[in-house]
């Protein structure tokens, strides 16, 4: 299996800058700065079909192109290391593996949009990762890959680490922009887009850690190479899949984009835990839909998932076995989303706690048959909320009712949780 982002992965330590450089690290930066026109960098990312790894899968090159040539300065490059999607930990692993790819990626993207200030937004529970990044930023600066007039190219960039104090919504890029400015982290609905008016009303490009880490490799090896990494011709690159839950070996694996779910679970995560049978999974974190068993073999890439009516999300697979109560699991996630709502819009702020309460009653055996249509209607209506948090929150409920309604009905008819032994 070609390891690109995890090439320098060691079980017990972080790859050093020297190690990274020995494998071609910072070559891309040297090649690009002051030598490639901005548009060429953008075109390379576009040709490589680099889709945002933060969950939305938006083409990275296209995002950079929305920063107008005439846009005002300074411009900002934000690295989104908030990673608060339950089940997701790839960014943490990536930072603990080979952090310089992220720094190099930030400088290259920064160059392509002429952003001279970089900010890594990182969640509070990743304090270790934050310190690693600060240390490695220092090293990269000493080595001349960051700071003023990088490698004599005339391009300068400084990167700082911004610690968050813990709210899921801060991962949403517009809320993050408010958070960084020391404002309440409510999202801002475009237009204007952040690439036009972001931090301090100046152009701001935000990318997920993994997206940025791909950039130097694309520049160095070309778009065709990147596309060839994928398991299927319609996808590109590798993907960091996180697997957690009822599997033998939970972990984060770099696999070709489009690897089959069954393959990931069975051959990489060591299959199901002893005595557990696969029931379903959330394929891309808590804000994606439960997969029906029929899709156990699905190719895990943005396009295929979308066509099947699902979302790849962050590619973080939470595996549930037959003995786990999905009502309980959904209730757990709904409690999470309700707690993490930013409180701006009605469907999310008031609707999610409402759904949580109904799920809690069903789980406690107090559910009523009319709760099912009510939940169904609500999971449809919260799609009309201000940002994507609430639709994500509705995904587990809606898919629970679509694929596992029997389990819910059982709770209601038996007046108790049929799995009461567990959870």
């Amino acid at each position, binding site marked *: 299996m070609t390891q690109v982002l995890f090439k320098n992965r060691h079980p017990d330590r972080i790859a050093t800058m020297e190690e990274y450089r020995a494998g071609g690290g910072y070559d891309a930066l040297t090649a690009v700065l002051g030598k490639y026109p901005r548009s060429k960098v953008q075109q390379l990312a576009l040709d490589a079909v680099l889709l945002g790894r933060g969950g939305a899968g938006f083409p990275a090159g296209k995002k950079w192109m929305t920063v107008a040539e005439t846009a005002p300065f300074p411009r900002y490059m934000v690295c989104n290391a908030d*990673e*608060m*999607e*339950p*089940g*997701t*930990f790839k*960014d*943490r692993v990536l930072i603990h593996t080979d952090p310089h790819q992220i720094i190099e990626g930030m400088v290259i993207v920064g160059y392509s949009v002429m952003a001279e200030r970089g900010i890594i937004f990182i*969640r*509070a*529970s*990743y*304090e*270790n990762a934050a310190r690693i990044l600060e240390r490695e930023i220092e090293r990269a600066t000493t080595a001349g890959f960051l700071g003023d007039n990088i490698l004599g190219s005339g391009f300068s960039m400084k990167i700082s680490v*911004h*610690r*968050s*104090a*813990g*709210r*899921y919504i801060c991962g949403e890029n517009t809320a993050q922009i408010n*958070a*960084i*400015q*020391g*404002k*309440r*982290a409510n999202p801002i609905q475009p237009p204007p887009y952040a690439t036009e008016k972001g931090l*301090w009303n100046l152009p701001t490009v935000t990318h997920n850690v993994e997206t940025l880490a791909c950039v130097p490799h694309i520049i160095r090896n070309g778009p065709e190479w990147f596309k060839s990494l994928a398991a299927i011709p319609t996808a590109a690159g590798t993907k960091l899949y*996180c*697997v*957690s*839950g*009822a599997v033998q070996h*939970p*972990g*984060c694996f770099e696999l070709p984009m489009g690897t089959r779910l069954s393959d990931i679970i069975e051959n990489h995560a060591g299959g199901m835990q002893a005595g557990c049978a696969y029931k379903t999974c959330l394929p891309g974190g*808590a804000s994606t839909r439960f997969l029906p068993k029929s899709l156990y073999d699905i190719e895990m890439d943005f396009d295929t998932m979308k066509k099947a009516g699902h979302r790849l999300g962050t590619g*973080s697979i*939470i595996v*549930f076995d037959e003995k*786990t109560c999905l009502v*309980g*699991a959904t209730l*757990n*996630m709904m*409690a*999470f989303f309700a*707690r*993490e709502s930013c409180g701006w819009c009605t469907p999310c702020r008031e609707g999610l706690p409402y759904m949580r309460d109904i799920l809690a009653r069903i789980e406690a055996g107090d559910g009523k048959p009319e709760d099912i249509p009510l939940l169904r209607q609500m999971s449809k209506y919260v799609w009309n909320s201000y940002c994507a948090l609430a639709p994500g929150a509705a995904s587990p409920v809606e898919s629970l009712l679509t694929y596992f309604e029997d389990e819910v009905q059982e709770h209601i008819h038996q007046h108790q949780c049929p799995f009461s032994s*567990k*959870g």
Partner: protein
Amino acid sequence: MIPEDFKQQLQQHIAGVEHPREKVMDVIFMLQDRFGYLSDELLEDAASLLKMTPLEVEEIATFYEFIYRRPVGGHVIHVCDGVVCWMSGYTAILDHLRGRLGIDFGETTPDGRFTLLPTCCIGYCDRAPAMMINRKVYGNLTPKRIDEILEKLGWDITGKRDDTGSL
């Protein structure tokens, strides 16, 4: 009152950026790391350092999970209640902690050393169940491992306490 030398340290930290407000989180964390929690007095001091009104700092401080506006113990234990930990034995872990410390969520041990709080998925699902103590993560928790951790932090796990952990 913030000691003068520490105040200078904070001022230096703020002086590095164009918009002081950007540093509100850092300043709060620095104060919290040093004084335990963000008291009214510290919040007001932070506000004046950042050229914000106390309300503006409060708007931020009350938004986040890891900013404590009320007194907490020296060790703040955040137990992950994310879905992966939930299905990997969170309940048992929590019950064990409650029993050992004799406190429930939101409470602090009478000696003021431990506070127990929930938190959402902390991104260590590959090592579920997990918890965090003062922003340091502990994974693959079992009752035995919890005892080890508590002992290392100087907690007498054999001490007789109300073991019911009543909710």
